[in-house]
């Protein structure tokens, strides 16, 4: 068996998939839950950046993981709230406003980073904390599965917990029901007295919450520093992944797994004599292809409905 194939079928590969998936899954959930309400938050690229930065700074200066976690989450939710204010109250186009906020986050983090550390590239000079890895007691010992499933960063387990939370909120709480109703039929929701804007704001806050965890993982789970542009487009891939998964919990999990596997494969392929640029382009290329396939499918489904009338109507 070729060494490449061996390494792909190894436990390290399985382990790596989860690591790669975490900062994809979390923002995907964020995009999805806001998408369900009809006001999709595509500013998760910037949200993750901001939360990562805030987390690192707070952790470096307070040396408290808890404070860093809370600060990061607050930053993410604040950004989402700002987006909500501009879109829901000031009637800004949510796409343009989100693009603007992504760039605002990028500029602001570098700006502040320079002011605080004197460095525009990264916060290496700061001693920031890292979220711990967890060894799950029983699973740890199982051959094959153990090394794959155990020993992950707590935020990775958090990501899977987040999927469950997403499912729970969406299908088991009144808020989730209202979010779905608002996204499916605005008028229907309004006609039963639901405040559409407030519901959408809640969905945005939740998206900021989930997204912030993704950012915190990048700067405090993967590594222990913040670097400019460290999100590297994951927030945008999340937009595609969420629509591929139809904005639903199971769908977002599956599409994140898909992208996680592909991206991990890409990393492993680096050992092959392919230029690194090709490898690095794989995630973005596959996202584009997946988007095209998904859109074509959705279109075909709609067209088929018109061409094949049910026998219900009289001839």
């Amino acid at each position, binding site marked *: 068996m070729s060494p490449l194939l061996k390494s792909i079928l190894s436990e390290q590969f399985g382990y790596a998939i989860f690591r790669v998936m975490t900062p994809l899954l979390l923002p995907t959930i964020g995009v999805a839950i806001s998408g369900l309400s009809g006001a999709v938050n595509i500013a998760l690229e910037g949200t993750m950046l901001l939360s990562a930065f805030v987390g690192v700074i707070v952790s470096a200066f307070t040396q408290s993981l808890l404070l860093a976690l809370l600060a990061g989450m607050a930053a993410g939710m604040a950004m989402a709230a700002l987006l909500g204010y501009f879109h829901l109250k000031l009637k800004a186009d949510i796409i343009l406003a989100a693009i603007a906020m992504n760039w605002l986050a990028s500029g602001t983090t570098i700006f502040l980073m320079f002011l605080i550390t004197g460095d525009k590239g990264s916060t290496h000079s700061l001693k920031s904390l890292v979220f711990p890895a967890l060894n799950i007691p029983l699973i740890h010992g199982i051959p094959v599965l153990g090394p794959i499933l155990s020993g992950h960063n707590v935020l990775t387990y958090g990501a899977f917990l987040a999927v469950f939370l997403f499912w729970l909120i969406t299908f*088991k709480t009144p808020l989730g*029901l*209202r979010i779905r*109703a608002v996204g*499916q039929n605005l008028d229907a929701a309004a006609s039963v*007295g*639901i405040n559409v804007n407030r519901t959408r704001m809640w969905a945005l806050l939740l998206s900021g919450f989930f997204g912030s965890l993704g950012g915190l993982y990048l700067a405090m789970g993967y590594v222990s520093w913040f670097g400019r542009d460290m999100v590297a487009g994951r927030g945008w891939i999340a937009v595609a992944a969420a629509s591929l998964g139809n904005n639903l919990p199971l769908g977002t999990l599956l599409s994140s797994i898909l992208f996680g596997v592909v991206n991990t494969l890409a990393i492993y392929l680096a050992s092959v004599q392919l230029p690194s640029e090709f490898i690095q382009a794989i995630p973005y290329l596959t996202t584009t292809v997946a988007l095209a396939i998904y859109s074509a499918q959705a279109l075909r489904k*709609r067209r088929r409905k*018109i061409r094949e009338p*049910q026998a219900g109507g009289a001839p």
Partner: protein
Amino acid sequence: MEKILEARGILLVYPNGVVANRGVSLEVEKNSIHAVVGENGAGKSTLMKVLFGMLQPQEGEILYKGRKVQIRSPNEAIRLGIGMVHQHLMLAPDLTVAENMVLGVEPRLGRVFLDMKKAQETTARVSEEYGLEVPVDRKIKDLPIGVRQRVEILKALFRNAELLILDEPTSVLTPQESEVLFATLRQLKAHGKTIIFISHKLNEVKQITDRITVMRDARVITTREAAELAEHDIAYLMVGREISFERLPPPRAIGEPLLRVRNLSYVNEENIRVLRNVSFDVRAGEILGLAGIEGNGQTELVRILTGLLPASSGRIEIRGKPIGALTPRQIREMRTAHIPEDRMEDGVAAEASLQENVIVDRYYRDSFSRGLRLLWPAISRHTQDLIERFNILAPSPRSTIASLSGGNIQKVVVARELSSDPELIIASQPTRGIDVGSEELVHNLLKEARDRDKAIFLASADLDEILKLSNRILVIYNGELVAHFQEVAGLTGQDLGPYMLGVQKEENVSGEVRS
């Protein structure tokens, strides 16, 4: 009999100045089924919106159960016990029946969680209580419309509605489903509920209602016991009026059929059969009028004829050439013009200028462009010429469409379409929502075109217009042609009304012309 609802002297004027309700008074007896009928624009939908708190009248008062009330919002209406089933159902398609039912008043488990079990039980309970079977756990999008409507009714009942308003409920139902609905309504009446039923389908109205209120031109004409009125009487009350207009002089010679439609059918995305085996011809030198209340398939028919929608089956030929696969531009190049029913959606680009709007079908022709280059001076002159010819009130060819009044915008549309020198003109509701002066101009233009041997297909819900202009008249109801009048001399609204309202119907109607 006790009156559950009384409306007195309702005056409602829309922001654009249109008076939709003028001195309207309505008395609804408790525990009755009360119909409100009228043509498009008679004011019945507006009245219902007032009763449900969606609109506030400028004058008038409402008494509910004898007490004077102010209904400022749908929530207040619901709290009073008034429920409304809209024509376009207010349901979330991807949620289940139970979920839609409890939306806004969700039962909780603890304080955070949704008690779906309770929601399902409650839904089942309400369903059983009123004998309205609904599949509690199915998603709305998987249910036929008749069942969806039942869910909508249950929703209102669940919120303790005692007075139910149904807006054109049978417009989306098959005859069988309508029967089921009527059975439902009788059951609800037996439960002590009161129902207000808006419709233009008189046969149905007669079937189940106790009292009927007829509205016309923003006023209530009369309210009588259903038993006292025959369908023809109702139709007369709805449409019959002194129509003072001159009859058009008989046309000179009518030519060959320019447009041939054979067995046209169309099923839309919701699997509703919107057009059913429609066939007709339109000849040069005549105006073929298609009379019918809006929503009976005219919109789709016109869009299919102009290439904006694909037919499900059937054949359309212009001058013998089949046009099923042609693009809108190709159809236009066969000298076809289209005056659309929704001028703001299709007819104009509101933010663009007059001249930009006027040239959309001809900008690529030699007089207006050389190769890629647009010849703006020529375009401006052309537009100015149209402004004068068609009496459009606009400061200049560069004025934005959005700054013009509705009537003038329609004049722009008509000016553009008619100035392309078409041989076939397809006009849909061409004078909807415009002032009398503009309306008259449009009518004169259509007559002129007809006199110059053009073929004109006119779809309109305005009976006056149809009677005034048409050489032949087809009536459409529920997507089918139900009458063909080849001789129009002496026809009145009374003759057309019953067909438009589903009271009368001829079998196998075709608008074809035998040669």
